C-alpha cells in the first residue's frame, strides 16, 4: 500500500467507526459491538502508523507524503489545502497517538466493563472521534486544518470529561475545560487570520514566515498562537481546567489529558516553530511561562491528596518543561520529551486507573500496601514514576536532561532554575504517591483490592516497556527530522539526577520509612496552594468583569437591539390597522385604483418625455 492509502486508513477509519456508531444507535447501545469496532479501527490505525513509521525510518529527514486536496479555490488559486503532510515529526507523533490510543482503548475494555452497554458504546464512539481528530491534527499540512482538528479534539475532550454527565461536578468540569480552552483558541483563530492577511497562506513554512517577518507581525502572530498553546497545554494561568478534567474516566485522562491532547499545544509549537522563532520576544515569553508552570504545578502536585490530581498537576509541570524547551527555539528537546512523556504519563494514569478500579477511590488515604495485592500494577506504576522522576536510564531521564541542557545553553536561567527545582519536586511527589499507595499499612478499602484483568494489565506492561526503552532511541528519533542529538553525561544531567535521588530519598523519609506520618507543619501551606489563589482570582475576574460586561451587553441586547425589532414590528401592526380601510372588497374600487395607477404612470411617462 502506498503512503497515501496508509495515511487515509490511519485517519479516516476511526471517523468511519464513529460515524457508523453515531447514526446506527443499535450498534452503539449494544456496547460490546461498538467497542469492538472502535478497537479494531484503532488497531488498523496503529498498524498503518507503524508501517508509515517504517517508511520514514527508511528515508529519514524527508517528507514521505505530501498529498493535499484543494479546498476553497478562488480565481484558480487554492485558498486552503487539506490533506496529509508526513515528515519525521508528524510520522512519529502519529505513532505516539495511535499506539497510546489503542492501548488506552484496550485498557478501557476492562476499566469501563461495569458501565451499562449504552454508555459503554457511547464511550468508544467518542474515543474513535478523538482518534480521528488527533490524527488529523498531527498530519495537518497547514494551520487551517490544524485549527479544525484542534477544535474537534476540544469537542472530544468536552464530551469525554463530561462522560458521567449526570454528576454535576463532571458536567461543570467539562464546561470549564471547554470555555478555558475556547478562550485560548481565540488566540489561534486571530493568529491564523493575521497570518493569512499578511502572507496570503495558512502555511508555517519558511516563505510564509519570511513574509510575516517582513510585515512586522511575527511577534503578534507568535504570541497569539502561544495563547492557544497555553490553553491546550495547560500553561499558567490557563492551567485551571486540567485538574478539573480529572472528573472524566481515568483512561480518558490518560489519553487526552496526559499523553496526546494536551500535548497538541506543544505539537503546534514544534510544527510552527519557524513562526515562533521569528520573534525573540515570543520565545522569551514561552520559556518563562513554561518554566514557571513547571515549578508552580510541581509545587501544587506535592500537596494533592487525590492520585489523579497529583498526576494532573504533574502533567501541567511536564508540559511546562516542553513549552520552556520550545522557548529555546529548538524543537528536539520539547519533541523528545513529548514522546517519552506520552508513554510514561499514559502508563501512570492507566496504572492509577487500575488502582482506582481496585480500591474504588481516588484518595491516597484509601490506598496503601497495594504492592503485594496488585503486583503488575505496582511495578508498572513504579516504572512510570521513575521515568517521570528522571531516574537514570529511564525515558524521562534523557528527555528532561536534554531540555535542561538546552535551557542552560540558551542562557535562560530563570526557566533553568525552575526546571531544576521542579525536577527535585517531581521526584518527591512521585515518591510520595508510590510510598503512600503501594507501601505502608493498607487502608480498609485496600484490603480487598486485587489485580485487574488482562485487558488492563497488558497495556500497562507494554507502556512500561516503552517507558523504559524509548529513551535509548533519542538519536534515531531526532534523526528522523534531521536534528542532531547525542546523549552525553553533562554536569546538568548529574545534578538533575542527584536532585531526583534526593527527592525520592526525602519522600522515603517522610512517607516510606515511618508510614502514616503526616506533614502537619506543611498543611497550612498546602491548603493555600490547594485551594489556590488562582482559582479565586479567576472566579473574581469572572464575576466582576465578565458578568459585568455581560450585564451591559444584555441591556443593550434587550433594550436597543430587541427594541429596534419590537419597534419595527409595532410600526407594521399599526400601519396595517390604518391601511385596512382601503381594502373595501368591492371589485369596482380595485379597478378604479388600477385605472388611476395607469393614468399616473402615463402622466409620468408623458412628463418624463
Amino acid at each position, binding site marked *: 500500500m502506498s503512503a497515501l492509502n496508509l495515511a487515509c486508513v490511519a485517519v479516516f477509519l476511526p471517523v468511519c467507526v464513529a460515524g457508523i456508531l453515531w447514526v446506527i444507535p443499535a450498534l452503539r447501545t449494544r456496547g460490546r459491538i461498538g467497542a469492538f469496532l472502535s478497537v479494531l479501527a484503532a488497531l488498523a490505525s496503529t498498524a498503518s502508523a507503524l508501517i508509515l513509521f517504517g517508511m520514514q525510518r527508511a528515508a529519514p529527514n524527508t517528507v514521505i507524503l505530501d498529498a493535499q486536496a484543494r479546498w476553497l479555490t478562488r480565481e484558480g488559486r487554492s485558498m486552503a489545502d487539506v490533506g496529509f503532510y508526513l515528515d519525521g515529526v508528524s510520522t512519529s507523533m502519529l505513532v505516539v497517538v495511535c499506539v497510546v490510543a489503542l492501548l488506552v482503548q484496550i485498557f478501557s475494555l476492562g476499566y469501563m466493563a461495569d458501565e451499562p452497554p449504552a454508555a459503554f458504546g457511547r464511550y468508544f464512539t467518542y474515543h474513535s472521534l478523538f482518534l480521528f481528530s488527533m490524527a488529523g491534527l498531527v498530519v495537518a499540512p497547514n494551520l487551517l486544518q490544524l485549527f479544525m482538528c484542534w477544535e474537534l479534539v476540544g469537542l472530544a475532550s468536552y464530551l469525554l470529561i463530561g462522560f458521567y454527565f449526570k454528576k454535576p461536578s463532571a458536567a461543570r468540569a467539562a464546561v470549564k475545560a471547554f470555555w478555558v480552552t475556547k478562550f485560548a483558541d481565540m488566540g489561534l483563530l486571530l493568529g491564523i487570520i493575521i497570518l493569512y492577511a499578511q502572507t496570503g497562506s495558512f502555511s508555517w513554512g519558511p516563505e510564509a514566515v519570511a513574509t510575516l517577518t517582513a510585515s512586522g507581525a511575527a511577534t503578534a502572530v507568535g504570541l497569539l498562537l502561544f495563547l492557544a498553546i497555553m490553553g491546550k497545554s495547560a500553561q499558567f494561568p490557563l492551567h485551571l481546567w486540567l485538574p478539573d478534567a480529572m472528573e472524566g474516566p481515568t483512561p480518558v485522562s490518560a489519553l487526552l489529558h496526559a499523553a496526546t491532547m494536551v500535548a497538541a499545544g506543544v505539537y503546534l509549537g514544534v510544527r510552527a516553530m519557524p513562526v515562533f522563532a521569528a520573534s525573540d520576544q515570543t520565545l522569551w515569553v514561552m520559556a518563562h511561562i513554561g518554566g514557571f508552570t513547571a515549578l508552580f504545578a510541581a509545587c501544587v502536585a506535592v500537596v494533592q491528596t487525590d492520585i489523579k490530581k497529583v498526576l494532573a498537576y504533574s502533567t501541567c509541570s511536564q508540559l511546562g518543561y516542553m513549552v520552556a524547551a520550545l522557548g529555546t527555539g529548538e524543537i528536539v528537546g520539547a519533541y523528545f520529551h513529548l514522546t517519552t512523556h506520552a508513554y510514561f504519563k499514559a502508563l501512570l494514569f492507566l496504572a492509577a486507573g487500575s488502582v482506582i478500579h481496585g480500591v474504588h477511590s481516588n484518595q491516597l488515604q484509601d490506598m496503601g500496601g497495594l504492592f503485594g495485592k496488585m503486583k503488575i500494577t505496582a511495578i508498572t506504576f513504579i516504572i512510570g514514576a521513575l521515568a517521570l522522576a528522571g531516574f537514570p536510564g529511564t525515558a524521562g531521564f534523557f528527555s528532561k536532561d536534554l531540555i535542561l541542557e538546552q535551557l542552560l545553553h540558551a542562557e535562560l536561567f530563570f526557566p533553568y532554575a525552575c526546571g531544576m527545582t521542579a525536577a527535585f519536586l517531581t521526584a518527591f511527589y512521585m515518591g510520595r504517591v508510590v510510598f503512600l499507595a503501594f507501601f505502608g499499612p493498607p487502608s480498609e478499602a485496600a484490603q480487598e483490592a486485587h489485580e485487574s484483568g488482562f485487558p488492563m494489565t497488558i497495556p500497562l506492561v507494554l507502556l512500561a516497556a516503552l517507558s523504559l526503552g524509548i529513551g535509548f532511541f533519542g538519536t534515531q528519533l531526532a534523526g528522523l527530522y534531521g536534528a542532531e542529538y547525542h546523549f552525553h553525561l553533562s554536569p546538568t544531567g548529574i545534578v538533575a539526577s542527584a536532585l531526583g535521588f534526593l527527592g525520592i530519598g526525602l519522600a522515603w523519609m517522610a512517607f516510606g520509612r515511618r508510614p502514616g506520618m503526616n506533614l502537619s507543619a506543611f498543611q497550612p501551606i498546602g491548603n493555600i496552594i490547594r485551594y489556590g489563589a488562582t482559582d479565586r482570582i479567576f472566579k473574581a475576574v469572572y464575576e466582576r468583569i465578565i458578568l459585568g460586561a455581560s450585564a451591559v451587553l444584555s441591556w443593550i441586547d434587550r433594550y436597543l437591539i430587541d427594541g429596534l425589532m419590537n419597534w419595527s414590528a409595532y410600526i407594521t401592526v399599526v400601519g396595517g390597522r390604518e*391601511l385596512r*380601510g382601503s381594502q*373595501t372588497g*368591492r371589485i*369596482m374600487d380595485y379597478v378604479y385604483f388600477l385605472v388611476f395607477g395607469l393614468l399616473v404612470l402615463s402622466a409620468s411617462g408623458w412628463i418624463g418625455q
Partner: protein
Amino acid sequence: MIPTLQSYLLLGSGIFCLGLFAALSRRNAVGLLVGIELMANGVNLNLVAFSRFTGLIDYQVFALFSIALTVAEVVVGLAIVILIFRHHRGIDTDLVSEFEG
C-alpha cells in the same frame, strides 16, 4: 373619403373608453364582462388598423392571439359569474365583498 389610420385609432380608443366606462360603472357582473370585452376589442381594432397601414403581418398575429385570449377570459369570467350567482343568489358585484379589510 378614404379612412386614415388616425380615424381607426380614434374609433378604437373610443370603443376602449366606452368599455372602460362600462367596466367601472356597471354593477352587473355580466355588464362588467361585456365592458372588458369592449376594451379588448378596441385594442384589437387598433392592431388590425396598424397591420393594414404598415403592411406588416405581425399585428394581425397579435390580434389573433388577443382574440383567443379574450375568449378564454370570457369562459373563465362567466364560470366565475355562475359560481357567484349560486353563492350569493345574484350577480351584483357589490354582493361580493368577502375581501373587505
